[in-house]
């Protein structure tokens, strides 16, 4: 920029008493007023308020300020606010520097004199940098009007429908042969007892028929490159060995399969059996069969009798063993991640005997058992007999440090209440006991439903089950009734464990693929726990449903709509500003060693041949996040970070020491 006179305005915020009670704000204001280039310094109760911002704008206009220092809270909080403030007054938004005298000073110190002294130093440091600040330009990139939705459970389905209804193209990728996710496995839903399939099926069909949605089932996202607006995505479509156009979904192939009834059904979580050629459940979408390459005799052994029975049986000539996997490449504007959850593996709690006793079931296994589309058509029979005593155990794998899951899974209290209710409906004479630690009936209609279940005669006993052992052909459930302080034993024919929600086993793979992170509980991390719950640290990538943390269906749908809305907002804008604080390479100093390329998480620097035989690093402005990793890695100091140049940082250091 041309050498104009630097005129800095310094604004020190009281933040009510947040700063004012620990830091002598007036003293700070006066101590910096004589610093070089400072033309005015002021203090104000709340700088971020409208009058506070107006004060800054007025000074810029009247006094010709061209740099601003705000001494207030963390730049993470209000840097964007003050950038806008000075931009409104005609300055480049990057001409503001924030001194954090709240989080880094008043909140962490007690002695007022010392805190004031530190605040002065922090402001001096910011003033020093402000003198050297350079205006930066924010580039704009186009946003492709196409969204990728990963995962087709209820979250992915809802997000896809919303985005597609808004007129954008959606690619919905699901790794299973059918969409539907976990919700499709459930029988009835709490607290209203709607049949899950009944409310789910119309949405699934709508997805299939929507002109703006392209469904990629039995597929997996294997590569994501690029950046918001311009993601380059590769999707691997596994061969189904069934021609999707010809298959009528008649099921003759499954009937004929030589492995019929011998393969564990994933959809029925081990409670039922299927053929190698299968459709996961009757109302699957698409309603097409898939030949499971892991089990199919012809595909694993190269031989299935004289000729594959399914091929012989199919009247539509749809069986195609010659199919190969396919890679689909997509140009995508925004991505919604809705990959869902895994169920807690109850064998990690050996005291409950899960995996050891056939009549100890996980919550999801019970859903399949009680479901009319399940392996027993909804008949709850244990060893051929109606269970007389059923015990439910809450918090299995949730709120439990011994298995490393400190969080509450948020659905188990209510699904257990619902399951007890379902048994009561079918077997009114069964004695039902629920062991719990606390009951969390926090949602709309939850407490009322919990009361209703107890009124039906379900016995709630407060206490964590310590042990389940065999007693003849029944089970003995042992616990302490912690309200009475007494041990209690309950005999049972069936025990249902309220198994919790855990992050998907392949969550790391997904994180690496999308360059997003996880929170300490293992679920995907949102950009802000309260104010940006569907955004991630990567622009243009949004999260919805249980991949972000345990939640019930209404919360999942709400979050999916939120994620869809965020994606749509960006795509409607059509353009997006990309980070202006990025790395830049001095091509005369760069020796082309490539360490920056190795250091970068985002693939921004690339070695280019500047002249024959001479490699020079170039940073792709759109990919760079301005993290600075390349600048640190560069052995020649050829890379500098805009807004954090060496001379800017050194001036700050000099000012504080």
């Amino acid at each position, binding site marked *: 920029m041309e050498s104009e006179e630097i005129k800095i305005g310094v604004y020190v915020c009281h933040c009510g008493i947040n700063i004012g009670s620990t830091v002598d704000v007036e003293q700070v204001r006066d101590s910096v007023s004589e610093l070089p280039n400072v033309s005015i310094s002021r203090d104000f109760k709340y700088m971020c308020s409208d009058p506070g911002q107006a004060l800054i704008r007025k000074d810029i206009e009247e006094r010709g300020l061209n740099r601003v220092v705000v001494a207030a809270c963390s730049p993470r909080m209000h840097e964007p606010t003050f950038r806008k403030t000075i931009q409104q007054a005609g300055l480049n938004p990057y001409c503001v520097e924030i001194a954090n005298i709240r989080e880094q000073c008043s909140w962490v110190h007690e002695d007022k004199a010392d805190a004031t002294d530190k605040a002065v130093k922090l402001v001096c440091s910011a003033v020093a940098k402000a003198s050297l600040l350079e205006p930066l330009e924010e580039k704009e990139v186009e946003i492709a009007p196409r969204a990728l939705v990963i995962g087709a459970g209820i979250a992915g389905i809802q997000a896809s429908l919303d985005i597609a209804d808004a007129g954008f193209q959606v690619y919905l990728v699901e790794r299973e042969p059918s969409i539907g996710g976990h919700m499709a496995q459930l029988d009835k839903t709490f607290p209203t007892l709607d049949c899950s399939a009944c409310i789910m099926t119309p949405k699934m069909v709508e997805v299939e028929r929507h002109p703006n949605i392209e469904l990629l089932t039995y597929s997996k996202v294997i590569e994501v490159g690029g950046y918001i607006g311009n993601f380059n995505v590769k999707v691997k479509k596994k061969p189904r060995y069934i021609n999707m156009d010809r298959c009528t979904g008649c099921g003759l192939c499954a009937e004929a399969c030589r492995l019929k009834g011998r393969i564990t059904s994933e959809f029925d979580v081990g409670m039922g059996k299927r053929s190698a050629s299968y459709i996961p459940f009757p109302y699957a979408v698409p309603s097409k069969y898939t030949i499971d390459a892991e089990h199919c005799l012809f595909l694993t052994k190269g031989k299935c009798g004289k000729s594959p029975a399914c091929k012989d049986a199919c009247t539509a000539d749809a069986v195609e063993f010659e199919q190969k996997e396919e890679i689909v490449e997509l140009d995508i504007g925004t991505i919604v991640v809705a990959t869902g959850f895994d169920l807690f593996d109850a064998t990690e709690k050996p005291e409950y005997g899960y995996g050891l006793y056939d009549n100890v079931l996980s919550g999801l296994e019970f859903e399949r058992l009680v479901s009319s589309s399940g392996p027993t058509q909804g008949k709850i029979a244990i060893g051929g007999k109606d269970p007389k005593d059923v015990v439910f155990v809450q918090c299995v794998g949730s709120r439990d440090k*011994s298995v490393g899951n400190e969080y509450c899974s948020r659905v188990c209290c209510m699904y257990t209440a619902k399951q007890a209710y379902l048994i009561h409906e079918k077997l009114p004479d069964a004695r039902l006991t629920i062991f719990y630690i606390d009951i969390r009936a926090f949602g709309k209609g939850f407490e009322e439903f919990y009361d209703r279940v107890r009124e039906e005669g379900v016995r709630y006993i407060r206490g964590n089950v310590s042990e389940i052992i065999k007693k003849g052909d029944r089970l003995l459930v042992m616990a302490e009734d912690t309200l009475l*302080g007494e041990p209690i034993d309950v005999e049972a024919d069936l025990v249902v464990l309220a198994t919790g929600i855990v992050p998907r086993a392949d969550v790391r793979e997904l994180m690496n693929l999308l360059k997003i992170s996880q929170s300490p509980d293992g679920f995907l991390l949102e950009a802000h726990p309260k104010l940006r719950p569907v955004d991630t640290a990567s622009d243009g990538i949004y999260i919805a449903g249980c991949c972000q943390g345990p939640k019930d269906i209404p919360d999942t749908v709400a979050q999916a709509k939120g994620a869809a809305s965020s994606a749509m907002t960006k795509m409607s804008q059509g353009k997006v500003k990309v980070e202006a604080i990025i790395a830049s390479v001095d091509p005369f100093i760069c020796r082309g060693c490539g360490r920056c390329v190795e250091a970068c998480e985002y693939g921004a620097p690339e070695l280019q041949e500047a002249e024959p035989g001479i490699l020079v690093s170039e940073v792709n402005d759109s990919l760079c996040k301005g993290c600075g990793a390349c600048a640190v890695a560069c052995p020649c100091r050829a890379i500098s970070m805009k807004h954090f140049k060496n001379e800017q940082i050194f001036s700050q250091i000099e000012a504080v020491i």
Partner: protein
Amino acid sequence: MFRKSHFNIRKFIYDAFDKDMAKVVFEKVGIWDCTTCSACLNKCPKGVDTVGFVTGLRQLMVEDGRIPPPIRDALKSVSIHKNPWKIGAEERSKWAEGLEIKNISEGADILYFVGCTPAYDARLQKVARAIVGIMNKAGVDFGILGNEEGCCGSEIRRMGDPWTFEYLAKENIETFKKYNIRKVVTTSPHCFNTFKNEYEGADFEVQHYTELIAGLIEEGRLAFSREINKTVTYHDPCFLGKQNKIFDPPRKILASIPGVKLVEMDRARERSLCCEGGGGRMWIESEDSEDRLAKIRVGEAMCVQAQILATACPFCLLTLEDVVKTEELEESIEVLDIAELVIKAL
């Protein structure tokens, strides 16, 4: 039918919040019932150090001097004789007479740490001799400390005397250093556990003897020549299983003995039922009059038609065998240490 004690750890913890600790300790019953088996500790979803709390309460009682006489005598004995069994330290290596075991001072790959109970108790001496026999057969280069061996302190610590424990630990570590001992093999899971997890500043490797023998079998260094045609079940000692997750080596040994039919009880591995011998309980009876857990356990073994109830812990061996004797079950079931079974089959 399956619960023995009225001891309720939560009641102790709640009272300790706002009441005079001494009052809590001295007015309530059951504090000496806890065997420190760690079943509750492993299950607690909130990670409460229940066992630490129990030993902490017992420590208050020891400090005050108001402890049951058998506990007092055991603690006193350790200070005088370096073992809680009130027998002189000079008699510690009597069990090894005639076995020609090398003293560790002559140098050896492994120190066989016998432990107080196997050294002094006539029944357990058989187990110690069996372990020595097995190691000799496999050509293991080992030595013992002889009369210089002192209590590991595991039970002492759990009886509420951390001071003597610290003293014993320090002394043992020094002794091990003196003879440049790199690897220690123990008879007892209790010595094993305390060496492995509670000795601060220890820099030696520690193995339970079942781990050593399982390894020897795997390496082909032990060849069985006799069959034991019996149905055997294995009782997991808490300090080996629950607390150190050593479930497989003992089972591997039993499965490799020719003729042995290994069956599992309903409560096996992490689910094992405590025999009631830990946490100082070898020295003090429960205040409750219910059946001993060892009795329930022997019943569980008989439920699976076991002819031999095998275990790998001196305390488990004694408590379980006591039941077989008092209930006159000798005709139906025999309690043996794994080492005794191995030596029989060699």
